[in-house]
């Protein structure tokens, strides 16, 4: 039984017909085409499917697409403004924070949410906020350094 829904993804309105058992992550990737949200563990453990749902980070692998009806979603593609990367993204690049990059979309969005809610995070705050975003390349240190640098630049 197809259900009509309308959701906003990165500012664009998407009217879609979805099945009750369609998962939001799959619909965002295959129907909307926003492939920044990655398919990782598919059980909420790894964080690479993170999107902002009405401004708050959620695991899109743990949501049914039909739940997004009437809601606003931002994927990592929606973070740059007018094609210009955010300062946080620039700092991830200059700190060489990522290697394979598979975890990057979730970490960009998780760090974006952290800095919005807490402009003055401690190192522990950053670790705590990103604890559910698994990175198997870097050991996390250059990621945490970049987030703290972004907070510092925003303050000065």
């Amino acid at each position, binding site marked *: 039984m197809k259900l009509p829904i309308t959701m906003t993804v990165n500012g664009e309105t998407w009217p879609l017909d979805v*099945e009750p*058992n369609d998962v939001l992550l799959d619909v965002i990737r295959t129907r909307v085409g926003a492939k920044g949200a990655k398919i990782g563990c598919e059980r*909420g453990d790894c964080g690479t499917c*993170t999107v902002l749902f009405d401004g708050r980070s959620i695991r899109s692998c*743990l949501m049914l697409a039909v*739940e997004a009806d009437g809601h606003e979603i931002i994927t990592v593609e929606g973070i740059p403004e007018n094609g210009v990367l955010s300062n946080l993204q620039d700092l991830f690049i200059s700190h060489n924070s990522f290697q394979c990059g598979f975890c990057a979309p979730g970490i960009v969005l998780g760090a974006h949410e952290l800095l919005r809610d807490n402009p003055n995070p401690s190192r522990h705050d950053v670790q705590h906020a990103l*604890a*559910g975003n698994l990175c198997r390349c870097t050991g996390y240190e250059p990621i945490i350094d970049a987030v703290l640098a972004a907070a510092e630049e925003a303050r000065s």
Partner: protein
Amino acid sequence: MAIAHQFAYQKVATLDEAVEAIARAGPDVRILAGGTDLVPWLRDDAIHPDLVVDIKAIDGLDTLTREGDHLFLGPLVTFSDLLTSDLVRDHLPILFEMADTVASPGIRNRATVIGNICSAVPSCDAGPTLLVLNASIAVLGPAGARTVPIEEWFLGPRKTALSSGEIVTGLSIPIPTPPHGAIYLKLQRYQGEDLSQAGITVLVTGDNDFRVAFGAVGPIPARAHAIEEALKGKDLTDGLIAEAVGLVAGAISPITDMRATKEYRARICEVMLERGLPAAIARRDGTGPAYGTRLI
């Protein structure tokens, strides 16, 4: 991996509509709130509902209010809501400490406290804390409303006192008379998403009435009444702590699984009680570490 099982989806606007939808659908209905357990269980083919009833469009279910000497949580209150609530910080900071250990922001923004106790996995973080707080669960069904004390709620792994056709409408938590102190200790392999290997909540009131509950070391989270009786009304000494620690083995029934062995779980419960008792008292007396500080 897509969800293979097919089901109908209904979004309801009122609690009465939810009860009607559940009654009409037959035995296998699931309520959808945060979905952080429901969706992976569907994907794992562990549950096969005919109907999923989404309650997120019902007005007022996300309320977190104080009603006299109780805190009331609606079914849509998330763990993130506990972390940002002034009421929680002021009256029941142990709920903040518990919520802070749950998974990650992306889960806490979505997962509900009531969903946690409805899923009723043995390691559920809300279990031990709601047990020491003597919470009660408001339920609505075809036969009307009733209240279930939290100690009668958990019946087994993923089994609760919720009868067929019923839905949880709220959680009422008595605020202990000040001063009180409490602590939730949760052992996990890493921060971020790991379930509890073993957990304990200790609460102590002004007249040294102790309440102790364990999680993840038995089929259900459970109070340790024998330990509470041994401590009741007494001043905490090294000897009394040792006596209480000696009762831990009889209070729990841990198993070996992928997260820990039963021997390790049993030992760590003793360590957590040993550290938790003086920390709860220190918090009551205003000298303890801030709520949210990890002692293990």
